[in-house]
């Protein structure tokens, strides 16, 4: 004869097991619902946050063959490297607008910028910027000069700029502008003045 207390205990355990199973299923469904989608349509780079500042962007004009200094108000984060990245992204946005005087591919982006003491900036462009760049001495040089002068004008202390593409050294931007050597900021500025 099975004692009554044992039957009651087993019955309670069974109820608990069923209840826990139901709760576990409920939790799994919730976890699935809150999981982010694997392919996000959101921008990879978070928008810059920080106080809005007035900066000078050196914007290329293909027809005139020059850079024009333009003031812009953009939010700039506190860190020097993040500030530099935000600056150049603001510059690229101008080139990605319809009817831009120096059009660049819509997917063009700055992957990252490293500031190395003393005074060296390493600008890492994404492949789309270089691979879809128009080929020609003037338009390539304007892109390079525009990036360098915008950086130098707004991030104090930069004397030399190295340009990489997808983290690697590349011979030319699109067949002409040599990227194998660091650019001397003063030389680029003097050339622009001439």
């Amino acid at each position: 004869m099975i004692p009554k207390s044992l039957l009651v205990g087993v019955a309670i355990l069974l109820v608990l097991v069923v209840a826990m199973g139901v709760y576990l299923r409920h939790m799994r469904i919730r976890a699935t619902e809150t999981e982010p989608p694997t392919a996000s349509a959101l921008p990879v780079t978070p928008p810059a946050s920080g106080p809005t500042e007035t900066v000078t962007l050196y914007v290329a004009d293909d027809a005139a063959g020059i850079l024009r200094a333009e003031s812009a108000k953009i939010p700039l984060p506190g860190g020097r490297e993040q500030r530099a990245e935000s600056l150049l992204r603001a510059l690229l946005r101008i080139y990605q607008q319809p009817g831009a005087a120096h059009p660049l591919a819509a997917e063009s982006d700055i992957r990252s910028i490293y500031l190395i003491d003393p005074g060296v900036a390493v600008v890492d462009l994404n492949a789309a910027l270089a691979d879809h760049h128009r080929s020609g001495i003037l338009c390539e040089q304007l892109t390079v000069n525009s990036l360098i002068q915008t950086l130098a004008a707004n991030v104090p202390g930069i004397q030399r700029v190295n340009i990489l593409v997808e983290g690697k050294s590349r011979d030319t931007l699109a067949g002409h502008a040599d990227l194998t050597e660091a650019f001397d900021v003063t030389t680029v500025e003097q050339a622009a003045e001439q």
Partner: protein
Amino acid sequence: MLLATFALLSASSSADEKQLSVYSSVAIYRLPVLERNGHDYVGLLELLEPLGRVSSETKGQVLKLRYNAVDAEFLEGKTRARIRGQNFDFSNPVLIENSRGLVPFNSLGALLPRFLGTQVNFREGARRLFIGDVGIQISFKMEASNPPRLALSFTAPVNPTISTEPDKLRMIFKRDPVVSPGSQSISFDNKVITQASYSETNGDAELDVAANGALMASFSNDRKTIVISAPQQTPTGPQNPAAIAPFPTTSSNTLETGSNINNSRIAAHRILAVVDPAHGGDERGAALTDSLSEKDVTLGFARLLRHELENRGFAVNLLRDADTTLSADQRASTANLGHGGVYICLHAVSEGSGALVYTALIPAEEPSKGVFHAWNAAQAPVLPLSRTVSTAIVAEMQKRKFQVQTSSASLRPLNNVVMPAVSVELAPGPNGVSDLTSANYQQRAAAAIADAIVSVRDRLEVQP
């Protein structure tokens, strides 16, 4: 000793090489004539490329070629080809080597009109091919002065290589479409200058003037006239050998123009211009149109510039004369080793208009190690002179109504070249991108560059 022997053998082998000279209003160029199975052949692509737009495709034994709007098909080892939808029979089989079509040399006179739609004058024995009415005529005028003078008048400027031998002055026309004066030999009723004889061989025309004594030559009339005369005898004292034989008997010279004639060793004043058609081979440069590559435009443009510079008395080293791949380092090394006086790199672009002239954007120069410069800043010491050349080119192009800008660019191999160096990027003219392949448009630009180089040649001569 071994090196000297090798050099001699190399020179001899180069001199023996068979060459075809092609003269047209678009381009003047030379091609190697290749011997296969006991017969002479030339590369069809190389022959047509300077004259128009050429594309070709090889599939197995079949070579399909398109020249402007003319389609042709060739079969390896066959004597029959299809051109403009019609049969064409060669005397010997067509050969295909490395996707390159070789056609029998002796068929060129009949073959080319099928492509060009115009008659050609093919002098097979002399290996000279004239396309259109490009021949330069010669006329002779003997002046019975004392000393006597023989004036040779040409219908266009010429630039022969001139050398002297005892009792003879020899002029070799390598790039001038000079044609026979009618008679192979002309005798003069003169005791000093006795005879002129004309001959053609291996792509060259040669004019020899025989005399009883030494002769000297001078150019005038914008290089359309060459005056040959006996030098004045020194009235007193021992004879001055330099006056009697102004040109070393073993030398080969191109003379200065008009009143700038210098009877000393003129070869020492001849400047080597290095002309570099950018891109080439695997590196096609910018896609100017769907079917037009920058590398093809730069090559045609460079050939015209070579001609213009040679017409002005420069020696020219064209860094590539075919669709070959050259690295920036190879270009700079070749230019530097040749001790050129000026380096001109040619580019083309489909945007903008006119031309853009660039000098090097030199990075911060690393400290020099004795006489050595950093490779990426080798241009630094001559950069001011490069800017002078650039300014001169801008001025000459503006005279010819080109829209032109000048700037600095990080463009290799400008930084690595030790002589004055510029890059000229040819942009479309008033007719758009089609101007980039227009011989007239390129010719105007090339003439402007060549005139600019002439205007600064005194500065170039003082370069080490």
